[in-house]
């Protein structure tokens, strides 16, 4: 068995090496694939906080991914059209600044997660899954009918947003930004899990009644985790929209929520790098198998079945053993 810490370092080094090699041999498409993997990994790292550590099987994290995406799309749309954004109570200028967009995307996603979480956490189990799915679908259908921002056709952004000192149109520089965001999220995740809050959250997932007897409110712990989780997934949505320079209602779709769960299960639920391995595998399979057939999801389904039946801890569990032993 490999020690999980060593595997994590190897994995990150390998992940970084791929786009650097692609840069050396002038393969910008591979860099874009790596960027997509980094963004999906970031979204799944967010979900893993709620699902892996909080035990909250959210089937509606596409809502936050979409909110992040639309935050970027709306701000950039108003900036590129030189059209002020009238909120009713205030009039704002659009912006092409990535840091501002990320801040807005993170905050709006966190606020949405607070509202959705506060209502959804009144339920548990299958009802929690259904209510989070319902919220995401509400956003999906709202986006379809939101004609001001393209309705079903979405919003196209002609030029990628700007980051001070960088040329974000250069694939390797944009990958660097996404990879840095992923590293930051992983660091935050690791710190969170080891903190008293993370330990209490872990305990609340196992025995919610017992944590109450030591003065901890399991619902509040889970809500905080859900908000942090939604905020990180929202940031990933903003980056994803910037990668494609396009946002559409599909960012809110339940397929995406399902894909994020699949990534985590593939890599390892509640394992720090589980979402990263899952995202790399997902993008690689999409690229390799997708080149042979459009029905590549059948193969993904078979792999997922194999993981669920024979490798309950995902790829990390297979390589490093069950949680707590690695």
């Amino acid at each position, binding site marked *: 068995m490999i020690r999980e810490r060593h595997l994590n370092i190897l994995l990150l080094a390998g992940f970084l090496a791929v786009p650097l090699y692609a840069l050396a041999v002038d393969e910008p498409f591979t860099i874009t694939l790596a960027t997509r993997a980094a963004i999906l990994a970031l979204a799944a790292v967010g979900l893993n906080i709620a699902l892996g550590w909080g035990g909250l099987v959210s089937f509606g994290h596409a809502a936050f991914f979409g909110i992040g995406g639309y935050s970027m799309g709306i701000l950039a749309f108003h900036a590129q059209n030189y059209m002020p954004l009238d909120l009713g109570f205030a009039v704002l200028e659009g912006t092409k600044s990535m840091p501002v967009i990320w801040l807005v995307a993170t905050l709006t996603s966190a606020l949405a997660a607070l509202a959705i979480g506060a209502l959804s956490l009144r339920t548990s189990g299958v009802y929690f899954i259904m209510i989070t799915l319902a919220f995401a679908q509400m956003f999906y259908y709202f986006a379809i009918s939101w004609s001001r921002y393209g309705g079903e056709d979405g919003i196209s952004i002609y030029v990628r947003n700007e980051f001070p000192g960088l040329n974000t149109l250069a694939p390797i520089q944009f990958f660097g930004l996404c990879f840095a965001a992923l590293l930051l999220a992983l660091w935050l995740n690791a710190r969170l899990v080891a903190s008293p809050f993370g330990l209490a959250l*872990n*305990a609340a997932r196992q025995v919610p009644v017992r944590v*109450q*007897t030591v*003065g*901890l409110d399991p619902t509040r712990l889970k809500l905080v985790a859900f908000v942090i989780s939604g905020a990180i997934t929202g940031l990933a949505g903003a980056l994803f929209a910037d990668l494609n320079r396009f946002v559409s209602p599909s960012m809110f779709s339940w397929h995406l929520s399902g894909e994020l769960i699949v990534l985590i299960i593939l890599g390892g639920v509640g394992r720090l790098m589980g979402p990263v391995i899952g995202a790399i595998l997902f993008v690689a399979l999409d690229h390799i198998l997708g080149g042979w057939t459009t029905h590549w999801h059948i193969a993904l389904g078979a792999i997922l079945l194999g993981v669920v039946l024979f490798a309950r801890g995902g790829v990390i569990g297979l390589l490093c053993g069950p949680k707590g032993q690695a």
Partner: protein
Amino acid sequence: MTLLRVENLTASYGASQALFGVDFTLAEGEVLALMGRNGMGKTTTVKAICRMIPSQGGLHFAGQNLHHLPSFRAARFGLGLVPEGRRCFASLTVAENLIAAARPGHWTMARVTELLPRLGERTGQRAASLSGGEQQMLAIGRALMTNPRLLILDEATEGLAPLIRAEIWATIAQLKHDSGMSILVIDKSLRELGQVADSAVILARGKTVWSGAMEDLSADVSEAYIGV
């Protein structure tokens, strides 16, 4: 000064009533033994005090009416429970179990591991891999880390080896004498209870049938209600 006052406490599990009127008071710094045969309502009384089940009647702790408070708020007022069956957080290590429960006050990780040296030797070990006695000590340590005003021990020595039981009774005595901690203890060992408890309450069929100073507990009363 009265720390806990329980008056005519009643509680039910659905349609089945378990408590029919429990009364007792516990003073600051007092060790009170809650006794009775199996199924007489001792654990239910503790659950009602800790707000883990709904109940009716008077329930006052440190001047605060505990009724209508959720369990975690009652715990924050200073109720530290060592539950029956230990129930540690299995996937967390000893240190993590203690940190997760920690609230500011006298009891820190250093003090808890000084009181319970077995825990200090196993801080990095997962709770699930501890022996029954060590898990019991961890449950006591976890409750102390909440810095309670009242420590409630529900069958803390049940099913443990004599050596470990002796260690736990020694710990309870040390908590009483060194820290002056208020303790509500449920146990079946009348001999050990007699050594640490100041007063006793006996429950039968969900009601208080006897209460008084521990030294006043006669053999006739204990034979009639406890069977020893």
